[in-house]
Structure formats: structure tokens, C-alpha cells
């Protein structure tokens, strides 16, 4: 049982100090997500907090996923930006 940080992480460090198990660390490797959760240490915060702390503070939608790959903060859940506008943004970013 462990959460995972994916590519969209912007490396803001917010999650790192909150982890009760010190499972989160910065990876300084190009091509990898900026932060990494050690699956052997992550307990999804069970026994420490009601909610997984990293996912509670992470400001980036979709950056933290569960073992099924489901985002804990799905698109649109943090900013309230409508999905179709987010899509347009994505496309514009890709074109650049």
C-alpha cells in the first residue's frame, strides 16, 4: 500500500516535510518525477493521520496517485478550472 508521485509534480517540497514516515525524497534525475515516495516506507499515513498528508497539501492536480493509478486530486478538483479550459491549456502548452 503506497502512493506514488508522477511526472506532473512541480517539485514544490510541500509534501516532503509532512510525511510521518519520511517516505518522500527529492530525486534530482532528469526524466524522473521531481519527488519520489519510497513504497516500502509509505503507509498512506494509516495510524498517523486520517488522510494521506502528501495528497492533502499537494497543489498539483494529478501529481499523486494511488496503487491503481487513480489521482487523489483529480483534474479540476483543486483549482476549480473547468475541464475543457484545462484541456485547451494543455494543448497550447504542447504546441509551444
Amino acid at each position, binding site marked *: 500500500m503506497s502512493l506514488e508521485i508522477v511526472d506532473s509534480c512541480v*517539485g*514544490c*517540497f*510541500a509534501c516532503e516535510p509532512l510525511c510521518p514516515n519520511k517516505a518522500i525524497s527529492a530525486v534530482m534525475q532528469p526524466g524522473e518525477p521531481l519527488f519520489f515516495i519510497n513504497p516500502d516506507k509509505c503507509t498512506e499515513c494509516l495510524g498517523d493521520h486520517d488522510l494521506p498528508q502528501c495528497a492533502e*497539501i499537494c497543489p498539483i492536480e494529478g501529481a499523486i496517485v494511488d496503487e491503481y493509478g487513480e489521482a487523489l486530486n483529480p483534474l479540476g478538483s*483543486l483549482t*476549480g478550472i473547468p475541464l475543457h479550459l484545462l484541456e485547451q491549456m494543455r494543448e497550447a502548452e504542447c504546441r509551444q
Partner: protein
Amino acid sequence: MELPVISNAAPPSGGGGCSESGCGTEPDALSHLPDHIRSKVQDHPCYSEEAHHYFARMHVAVAPACNIQCNYCNRKYDCSNESRPGVVSELMTPDQAVKKTLAVAAAIPQMTVLGIAGPGDPLANPERTFETFRQLSEQAPDIKLCVSTNGLSLPDCVDELAKHNIDHVTITINCVDPEIGAKIYPWIFWENKRIRGVEGAKILIEQQQKGLEMLTSRGILVKVNSVMIPGVNDQHLKEVSKIVKAKGAFLHNVMPLIAEAEHGTYYGIMGQPEPTPLELQALQDDCSGDMSMMRHCRQCRADAVGLLGEDRGDEFTLDKIDEMEVDYATAMVERAKVHEAITTELEMKRALKAAPKFNPDAPLEDEAVPATRNIRIAIATKGGGVINEHFGHAHEFLVYEIGPKEHRFLGHRKCTPYCMGDESCGDGETVLGGIIRSLEGVEVLLASKIGFEPWADLEKAGIQPNGEHAMEPIEDAIRAVYDEMAAAGKLALPRADSAAQAA
């Protein structure tokens, strides 16, 4: 301790009289402050328009995490609303930040203020922020420290802040009403949970107000910044202003929302309008209530180095700093000399300004001078208080309002330089349109040099370009231009105005 508040209103009489330098007809926003606070403030590049030509500040990016979300912020990128870089900018460890600060301070003796403003919220990264402050208080006692915060963790940090050489704390307070707050802050992280909407905003507001009171009661200077978001908090900010001043904030600074879609912020994507320069100014007049302070605040990049206006960051990248050997003890002696020279110069200027007020025989010019109206003049400058920037290279214009006797600094109008010196010049036409729009209300533009083409377009837009005052001090030049226009009869008042202005 009660900190007085700067306002346009006359200082209460019977308050022990006013100090000499502040006792003129000239608007002097500092004159209301008691001596110990004025002395803290008057040499501060961020507060004193006078001093900001001479002293410099820098910011170090040591604090990446944030504990709230603002609708004008996308943490991926540099934040244009708060003075903070995005996480993509150079993030430093406290040790690196200290080394950089010492290196810059040794190379640029004018650097007197070190701030931590991000990339996230400094107080959401207390270890990193306070480690930096602790080392600097020890190693460089001649550097003032400042910190900006969204306020959520402020009450918990006040005791620690009070231990360091903290010059002032800036709190960004955009509202005091949770309903409005919910439109600005979608969520906060509080007691191990993400709390959304009105509930989250309510906690944030309570913490901000509590933190503000705790700081002022300890005698720590507090400045409040607000982002003006038209249709969301623009009217409300007047109320905010009253409350924060009553609680002892010595300055309330209103900044315009910057919301561009490509920044990927909520407001940017949703098309939230930014205030126009005139809307901003009207609100600043209502809120900040001060004539000369803080209008020069330019929401500088948090990691900018150098005198306000010139960015010398490239000289101090991490690898270059690694190679530098800084002997700070020696540097501090050198710095003290430079500071003394600057202080002497500033004092002389102040004395000169104050002098005519004590001349009882001064002729009463009032009747002699025909009434003329106030105008706005834009200046292209790189800093140093002189007109020394080409129109085409200017990233911003300083706007002054000048009347028959007084002038005041209104603020900066940022722009994309007309000529970037490369192919982007092809886009010059639309860029010029943008510049002209940003200069709404301005009648004269002074630059060290202005090209032929923009000249014609500026004229067409009712802005008189003028390159005759290159390298002259701004204040002398605008006075000369004003007097010349007045003499040419260009500034006659319409009748109704004339009565109003005379009153």
C-alpha cells in the same frame, strides 16, 4: 504599542508637534511616523522613494512550499503577484542563500535589505527560512531582514521572528470577509487537512489578523500588501485598509492583479480582468493614502539582485558564488563607509528640500502664478533618479503627477520593451499599442532617446515624446517640462477645475 498609520489626513494636532523635516506643505508621507519608526523606514529601498535610488534589496528563494492556494498563483511559474519566483527558478538551500547574500553584499555595498518571499510561503518552510535568518543575523548584522507571508502560519512564527534581525514583515491580506476570501483562495492546508471554500478562507483571515496584531504589539513593522482583483475585492479593500491600519500596519500597499492566461492561474484562465492603471491609482489613493511612499514598489522578481530596477542576478549564479571567497568582515567596513556617504547625501537633500520652508521672507507667489492644471509625465529610467533609458528599451515607465508647485510619484507602468533589439522588433507595432494603452492618462514622455516611428505614434495618441532631458535628474526635468508647458499656455485650467484646485 500603537503604530501610527500613514494617511493623507493631517496628523492629529497636540501630538507633540511635528518634526522639522515633515512640517512643510510638501506631502511627506513619513512625517506622521514617530522618529524611531521613521528612521527604520526612511532608508529602506522598499518604502522610501528617495532612498530607493540609492539602496538596494535582494531576495533569496529558499522557501518552496506553500500551505494555501491563491487563484492568482500557479506555483509552477514565477508569480507575478507576489514577489516570488516560481519553483522553476533557482531554489537554494539556506547555506547557499547565506553565501549568495554575503557575496552580493560585499560586491554591492548598497544592498541593505535581504528578503525571503518564496517561491512558496516562507513561514510554511520555517526551518529553511529561519536557518537563513539565523546565520545572517550572526554573520552580517548590517543587513536588514524581511519576510513576506500569506499569514496562515504567522501566529506560530511570531516568537521566532522576534529573535532575528527582522526589519519588517509583509502580510498579503486580500480580504477580511470569508465569502470574498472563498473567491480568492480555493483551499488552505490546516491541521493536517485541506480545507476548502469559505471555511478555509475564514481560518486564513483569522490567522492573518491575529498575526498582524501579535507583530505590531511586539513593535515589529508590518506592511500589508493586497492584490486588487476587480469585481472580487476592489471595493472591499477600502475596508481592509481601515482595519489593517487600525491594527497597526504602517503601510498598506495595493498591487494590481496580473492575470495572463499563459501563466495558467485560475484567474488567468478564467479571464478575470486586471485593473487598469487608472482604476488601480484611484484605489491606491483611497487605501494607501500616502503621497510618496511605496508607489515605486514594482513587484520585483523575488530573486532579483541589485539596485531596484536593474537586475544583476546573472553575476551571482550558484556556480559563480561557489568560486567566490567572501571576506565579510572587510566588506562590512567598506559597506559602512558607503552607507555613511549615502546617508550624508540623503540628509543634504532633505535639508535642501526643507530649507525654503523656513524663509519667512519668501515671496508669496500664489497670486502671481496663473492657475495651471496637473499633468502626468512618464519617465524611462534605469534607476539612479535620472532619465537614462531609451524609450525602446524600457521595461517600465515611472509616472509622475506634477502641478504648479508639487509633484508626486504615482507608480510604475510595466510594459514589453518596444524594441527588444532582435527580431521581436517585427512585432513592434502591437507592442507599441500596448505601451500606449499602459500610458493611459499620461501627456508627456521623457526618455534619453526615442525613435522616429514610436515618436509619431505617441504624438498621435496624445503623448508628447521628449528626448531633451537625457541624463537629467527626473525631478528637475519634469519641473522644467511643466514650466515650459505652462509658459506656453498649454496648461490653462478649465474654469470649473480652476476653482476646485484653488480650494
